[in-house]
């Protein structure tokens, strides 16, 4: 089972490489997505999944991320063929293959309980995404890809060093050397403090780069700004979640060790710092796709903030992982449609999107409102839970800062979004033939529906999963 989960997408990727037809190839993506979803459904509902003597284990946290990735991918995959049909002039062989390979690698991340293996999988995800960013083949997309690749690789090299440090911290105390998560959690109290400390910092910076925490977020606006909306959605909802999962793994070890207080402190700091940086760059942002990237930075900040606060906020952060992922789908896909229609992503050119694209425009606006935590969307519940967690824990200053930053972000993002959706399209706006069509808006509607559903009612299985995951994360031996 464990193997099937990531092998199937890889096989589909291989198929995509050898399929000759540029027209039919994209349909492999939904096929892969559906297959993956079915497998995921089986894995989530079935008994424990593990393989390779505990190297691959599907634990509650992994389940959560795996479920998110699978749903995200399958909905995006329905969008992909229509999108690629719009860009029929481009060869899409590598695009399709890399998209599927990315899915496989992300799945591997969620499964791996061996930290070295996890590193390999995350690095592979980075490499698989690079060609996706480069899909437009423009100088700008080239630049974005270069930055993404170099900064991502450097960051991930630091993560490798951190992983080594972690391993060394056990050798140093004369324990059996291991990189297996379960073993490390078990022996965490005996690990060498300074090494663990340094390892956590390196890992946080390393995987934080991948996740897009400030100040390692610098690749994000470029990459999200230039990538197709579809890729943006998968990156912001899926790839970043994988990196977050990696951080959670190490946090789990720290949690069990005496370093917990330090780790929490740093996580809270990084969370607030990321939100602040995002807020700074969102004010007067003219490029609405870059704005989404900063929004992603902000939400990554919220995630680590929630984890750092602990208690109820942990639950909130895990829920936010899901709600944010789904809502980012709405935003990126609708922004992609608007970008296509206007052939520009600057607010100077893009006006009156609701008049031009009634569905995408409305969904973009709705997505903005939901993602900023307006009830009754899903992110509202999670952001509110994190706030409650902060207050319950007595972190009043953090709570106040959190709210203030949310307000600034709202102002910045709102200004840009309203400029895009309201008003009348200017006469100079490029006349493209793009119109909303079902295949391009249904996935967005599905994401929106999911997001609203999560705000009004959290289904029982998901609730159990969240509770299991929170308990799993907070558990101390």
């Amino acid at each position, binding site marked *: 089972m464990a193997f099937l989960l990531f092998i199937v997408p890889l096989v589909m990727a291989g198929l995509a490489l050898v399929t000759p037809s540029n027209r039919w190839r994209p349909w492999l993506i939904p096929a892969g997505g559906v297959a993956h979803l079915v497998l995921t459904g089986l894995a989530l509902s079935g008994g424990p999944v593990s393989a390779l003597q505990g190297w691959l284990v599907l634990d509650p946290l992994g389940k959560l991320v795996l479920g998110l990735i699978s749903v995200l991918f399958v909905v995006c995959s329905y969008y992909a063929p229509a999108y690629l049909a719009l860009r029929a002039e481009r060869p899409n062989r590598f695009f399709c293959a890399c998209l599927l390979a990315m899915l496989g690698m992300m799945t591997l991340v969620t499964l791996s309980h*061996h930290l*070295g*293996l996890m*590193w*390999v999988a995350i*690095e*592979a995800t*980075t*490499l698989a995404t*690079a*060609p996706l960013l*480069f899909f437009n083949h423009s*100088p*700008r997309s*080239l*630049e*974005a*890809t*270069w*930055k993404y*690749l*170099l900064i991502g*690789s*450097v960051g991930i*090299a*630091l993560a*490798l*060093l951190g992983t*080594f*440090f972690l*391993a*060394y911290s*056990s*050798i*140093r105390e*004369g324990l059996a*050397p*291991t*990189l297996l998560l379960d073993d490390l959690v078990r022996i965490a109290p005996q690990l*060498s403090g*300074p*090494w663990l400390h*340094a390892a956590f910092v390196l890992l946080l910076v390393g995987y934080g780069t991948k996740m897009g925490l400030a100040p390692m977020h610098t690749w994000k*606006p*470029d990459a999200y*700004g*230039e990538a197709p909306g579809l890729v943006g959605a998968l990156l912001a909802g899926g790839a970043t979640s994988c990196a977050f999962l990696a951080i959670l793994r190490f946090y789990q070890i720290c949690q069990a060790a005496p370093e917990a207080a330090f780790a929490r402190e740093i996580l809270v700091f990084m969370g607030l710092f990321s939100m602040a940086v995002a807020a700074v*760059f969102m004010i007067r*942002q003219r490029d609405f796709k*870059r704005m989404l990237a900063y929004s992603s930075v902000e939400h990554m900040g919220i995630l680590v903030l929630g984890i750092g606060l602990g208690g109820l906020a942990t639950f909130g952060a895990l829920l936010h992982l899901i709600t944010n992922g789904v809502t980012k789908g709405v935003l990126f896909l609708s922004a992609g449609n608007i970008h296509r229609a206007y052939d520009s992503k600057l607010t100077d050119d893009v006006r009156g999107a609701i008049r031009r694209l009634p569905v995408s425009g409305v969904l973009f606006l709705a997505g903005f409102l939901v993602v900023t935590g307006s009830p009754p969307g899903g992110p509202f519940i999670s952001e509110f839970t994190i706030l409650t967690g902060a207050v319950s824990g007595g972190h009043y200053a953090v709570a106040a800062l959190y709210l203030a930053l949310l307000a600034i972000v709202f102002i910045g993002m709102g200004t840009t979004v309203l400029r895009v959706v309201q008003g009348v399209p200017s006469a100079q706006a490029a006349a493209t033939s793009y119109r909303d069509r079902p295949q391009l808006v249904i996935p967005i509607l599905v994401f929106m529906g999911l997001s609203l559903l999560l705000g009004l009612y959290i289904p029982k299985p998901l609730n159990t999963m969240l509770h299991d995951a929170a308990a799993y994360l907070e558990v101390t031996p």
Partner: protein
Amino acid sequence: MREFIDPILVLVLLLNFVALGASRLRTLIQAVAFQGMLLGILIILAHGSFMLWVLLMAGATVALKGVMIPRMLFHAIREVVIRREVEPIVGFVASLFLGAVGTALALLFAKTLPIAHEPVSSLVVPASLSTVLTGFLVLTTRSKAITQVVGYLILENGVFIFGLLLMEAIPFMVELGVLLDLFVAIFVMGIIIHKISREFSSVSTSMLSELKE
């Protein structure tokens, strides 16, 4: 055999300075290639035996870091480069000075970390950290895209040196995976450099600042 480790590590450190002081791309790449070969040797020395997987590992390292990647880089500069100088943002003397400071810092920082009772060598941790810092120096102070790839390689070498302490802890498969990932990364970077040179008719990354606020 462990008595050879320290001299080789010193050699690695010296190569860092060579890389920092190199004014020609060719020298820079050669220094890194040499460093990669040394790493292969270090694997054998650190393990102290000639078991098959150790030899395989060392061979792979030498082949990849010492031969294939440098060759790819040489190929790249042959194909695209107009000027073969390293274009530094910070001067060579200053770079060397910063490198020295970095090495000193690495030694100091390593002091604060406790070392295992039976270390492979007490120089491993500072050498590793210093190489990582050198990598960062090259990454941040050299403007050409290709030199940044080299910087990344040095950085990766530094991480690799630390891996010497953990020969037993890290399974063979994972090590190979790491190497493979490194190779693919460099490969993709090579492709991109190629594209960049076509698009921008230069490989200086200072051209790549179109995307900004």
